[in-house]
């Protein structure tokens, strides 16, 4: 299993009272599996991805990702774990603004061992259809092109798991389908698991395994959901 969650809870402090944002009793994702999580905005989907990526520490429970129990790790260890095993793609703000497309692909290797060299980075950009844009800065790329660069960078770090949080949220439906298909194909080729979070049903429908987050997150039933 690339992800194995048991009795996970995440609480936020809202004033004096703790606020339960996430309560996932049991959830798993297999190696190389591709999963779509759908649910309304504010339901805690991003929170789950942040916990799995090691960006957020769980309040309780067990989160094993790529064989590592994240709840046992300190913040710096989770940073190093993320650098080695997990790539994350956001809805926006994926690229470093002062870096060209190819530099954005290469930058991931600065924080971890391995990764790609310039030639391989160029090949990845070609794979996402941006061979002719490698020296473009993000400001000169469309949102769709920026997402493609983000996909190339995610693959460049040779992860076992890619987490994508609303990767098509800023794209029109035509480009959205193309980007998701590109992402799925790239993950298949690189043999890494993929978890995509989206509130768009059309995106989720493309996946064999779909998870309704309203069902997965028990906190939504208990206290009205995360805000």
């Amino acid at each position, binding site marked *: 299993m690339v992800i194995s969650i048991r009795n996970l809870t995440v609480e936020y402090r809202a004033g004096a009272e703790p606020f339960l944002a996430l309560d996932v009793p049991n959830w798993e994702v297999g190696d190389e599996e591709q999963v779509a999580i759908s649910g309304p*905005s*504010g*339901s805690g*989907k*991003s929170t789950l991805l*942040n916990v799995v*990526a090691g*960006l*957020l520490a769980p309040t309780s429970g067990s989160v094993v990702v790529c064989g590592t129990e994240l709840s046992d790790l300190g*913040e*710096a260890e989770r*940073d*190093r774990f*993320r*650098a*080695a095993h997990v790539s*994350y793609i*956001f*809805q*926006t*703000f*994926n*690229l*470093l*603004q*002062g*870096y060209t497309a190819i*530099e954005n692909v*290469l*930058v*991931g*290797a*600065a*924080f*971890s061992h391995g990764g790609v060299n310039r030639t391989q980075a160029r090949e990845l950009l070609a794979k996402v259809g941006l061979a002719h844009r490698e020296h473009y800065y993000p400001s000169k790329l469309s949102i769709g092109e920026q997402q493609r660069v983000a996909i190339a960078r995610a693959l460049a*770090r040779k992860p076992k798991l890619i987490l994508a*949080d*609303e990767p098509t*949220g800023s794209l029109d439906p035509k480009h959205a389908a193309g980007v998701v298909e590109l992402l799925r194909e790239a993950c298949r080729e690189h043999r890494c698991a993929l978890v995509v*979070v989206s*509130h768009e049903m059309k995106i989720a429908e493309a996946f064999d395994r779909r998870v309704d987050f309203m069902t997965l997150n028990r906190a939504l039933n208990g206290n009205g959901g*995360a*805000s």
Partner: protein
Amino acid sequence: MKLPTLVVKSLRQHALSSALAVVSIALGVALLVSVASLREQTHRNFTQEGLGVDAILGPKGSPLQIVLNSLYHLEEMPGKVKWTYYKKVLEAPVVESGIPFITGHSYAGFRVNAIDPRFFTEFEYLPGQHFSFNPGRGGQGRMFAGLDEAVAGAEAARELHLQLGQTFNPTCGVNPGDKVHYEKDIRFVGILAPTGTPHDRAIYIPLLAFYTLGGHGSDVQGMAINEDQREISGAFLKIRPGRGGGQNPLVQGLEYDINQSAQAQLIRPSEVLPKLFSIIGWVDRVLVGIAILVTALALLFLFVALVSALRERRRDLALMRCLGATRRTVFGLVMAESLIISLAGAVLGLAFGHAIVAVGSEFIRVETGLRFSAGYVSGADLFVLPAAMLLGLVAGLMPSVQAYRLGVLQNLTPVS
């Protein structure tokens, strides 16, 4: 992509503010370095000049004025010393020899001193250094022999374009409008090799020539014939060394005797010159204060530039954290920028400071004859780089801590 590349990329991303921070630090450091270099070299120049002379026999008056007049060709001599008294001082066992001189004349802005010819053979303008006419060292001609002959210092000759055989008429005084001795032409027969001392800016005529200059009146001209009536401005005295080559303790007795008399005083330049520095010391302190203030402002500028750059780059740093950079890594990236800017400013400032000394030394040499070296390594040079690193650390600390504390999620993810 390696971490140093990330630092360089970041510096390039805010190249203008980085460059301005480097330049402002460089200006402060340059000011500090050049002031320190000029101050130390001035101190060294003055104390070394003084060390070339054991003692000066001079008239009653300000000792500093007498030293400046006799060794640096500045000011005016406050009086005269009787020749007979000078001869009496020479008889003291502690005195090895004397070189009498008369100041108070000038030519085209350069002092003309009447002096004993042994000045060119026995006088040490720096410890162990004697004057030379050797063409290989930049000298020309020979020492004066007749009463109508003169020798010029190297800088005076250069500025006045003097040639051997050329004649001149000295002015009786050192101020514009003073009377010129047209009665007798004096011919240059020698030009001294450069010494890098104020002596390069003087012209020398024989001591006796002073008494024979027309226009001085019969009493002065009588001094040429009657030695006992002569007066001099003063004399450089060579004191016999004490046991082991150190200072002769008997000189204190001689100093006491001379100073108690109404005739003259004995001045030891090595004691007088430090007083000069205590007088002008506040100028040093003001200049150093200004330099420190400029450097402090430059570091404040660096701090503001880093904070402002950090504000622009919050998202980039958060993204780096998401890509696996630890808090310590982003702390290090911001701190490295601060250190690089500080060090670049310090190195540029060092170079700029020495360039200021190079340009300034040329002006000082022309004006005073004192030689300054742009390559001189002052105390400030040695502490500039470590100090820049320390101040870079201080300026970069708060922005680095802000980067360290940066929240990844707050700066990246929209909530869903």
